[in-house]
């Protein structure tokens, strides 16, 4: 019995020791990579934002001037939407929203929706999605130019009734064999535009 107990204690120490070594290794790696990782993530977001609102249009740090809104009524399902404000000389020139369309064919689709200060769309990008390769992934700019159809559109172009895919009687093309994906994207872009229209004054205010 005593032997057994001693053995268990020894094994316990052994496991503890290896846990410590493991923690040590991971902490060490973390300590010399975490800055690089944070920088990578920052640059990645910035690259996506600058594709929509080029550097020449604004003079602020897009990543520093952000808002987080949680407006279940505007964006449907409860979600935290990050808004990036692009300003020039303190004036709002564009707003980039990062909503997630929850109803893609394969889960949610993360979007970037850039809106000019006057409510006109600059453009839309799908930044992360799991849509079917060859069908739904045509929302990706690498695969097709479908998202460019949003450029220059606004709440009055087309009117709200036609802010749907053609299959549903709207103005936007669906893809052959994939209606669910574009439908989800169109719906979320419309919601974002409506949110912007409803909160325009609040969003234009300078702060910070």
């Amino acid at each position, binding site marked *: 019995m005593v032997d057994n107990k001693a053995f268990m204690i020894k094994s316990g120490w052994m496991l503890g020791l290896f846990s410590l070594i493991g923690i040590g290794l991971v902490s060490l790696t973390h300590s010399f990579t975490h800055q690089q*990782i944070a920088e990578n993530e920052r640059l990645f977001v910035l690259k996506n934002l600058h594709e929509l609102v080029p550097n020449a249009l604004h003079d602020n740090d897009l990543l520093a001037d952000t808002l987080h809104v949680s407006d279940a009524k505007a964006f449907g399902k409860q979600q935290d939407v990050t808004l990036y404000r692009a300003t020039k000389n303190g004036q709002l020139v564009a707003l980039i929203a990062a909503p997630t369309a929850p109803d893609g064919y394969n889960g949610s689709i993360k979007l970037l929706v850039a809106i000019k200060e006057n409510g006109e769309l600059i453009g839309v990008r799908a930044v992360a999605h799991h849509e079917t390769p060859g069908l739904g992934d045509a929302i990706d700019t690498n695969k097709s130019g479908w998202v460019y159809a949003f450029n220059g559109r606004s709440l009055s172009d087309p009117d709200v009734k036609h802010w749907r895919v053609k299959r549903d009687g709207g103005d936007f093309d669906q893809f052959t064999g994939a209606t669910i994906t574009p439908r989800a994207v169109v719906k979320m872009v419309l919601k974002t535009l409506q949110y912007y229209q409803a909160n325009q004054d609040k969003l234009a205010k300078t702060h910070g």
Partner: protein
Amino acid sequence: MDSYKQILKNGLWDNNQAFVALLGLCPLLAVSNTVINGLGLGIATTLTLILSNAVVSLVRHQVGSEIRLPVFVLIIASIVTAIELIMNAFFYELYLILGIFIPLIVTNCSIIGRAEAFASKNPMLASCIDGLAMGLGFTCALVILGAAREVLGSGTLFANAHLMFGEAARDMTIYVINDYEGFLLAILPPGAFIGLGLLIALKNVIDKRLAKPSQQAVTVTLEPKKA
């Protein structure tokens, strides 16, 4: 103890983790849709195998058999987490593509399989070579399957090479078939299963051909080591 040459041959061919042992199929099937994805995951897996085999071999006399599995799991998980952080820091875009499959290396049973079947019984150098051989064998499988699926599925080879080798490699993409419409099945998961099946069949045919000249001798069936 096997000779080093035997260990290498074992990992690359006779006991290839993907084609013979059929281990680690989840990452193999999920990530092998292009050559570069396959290569990226293959290298990460190889690195993990070498390091985990080395450490397991190093502590094999200290760790009693009762607690060896949790200790191996701890070792492997720590190594994979460290590799994940390093990839996240230095190969960020490739990391975005391989995404969840890097942490999933932990669940690649061929790693704990080699720790248990080889590294816990053999000296360190032999264990490292075994890790290298098994990893290379797995990488080859990923790359071959990736190449087949990429050519069939999208008509290219080495697409996205810049994610791994830097901007200079952007032109490495070979358009095998111009204006190719794409063959969706090859890119989707069923294509992975069918492709793997065909490759295993091909390997068996080659093995049979190789065995023919010495048919007089006793037929030796190589029992894959179960992990």
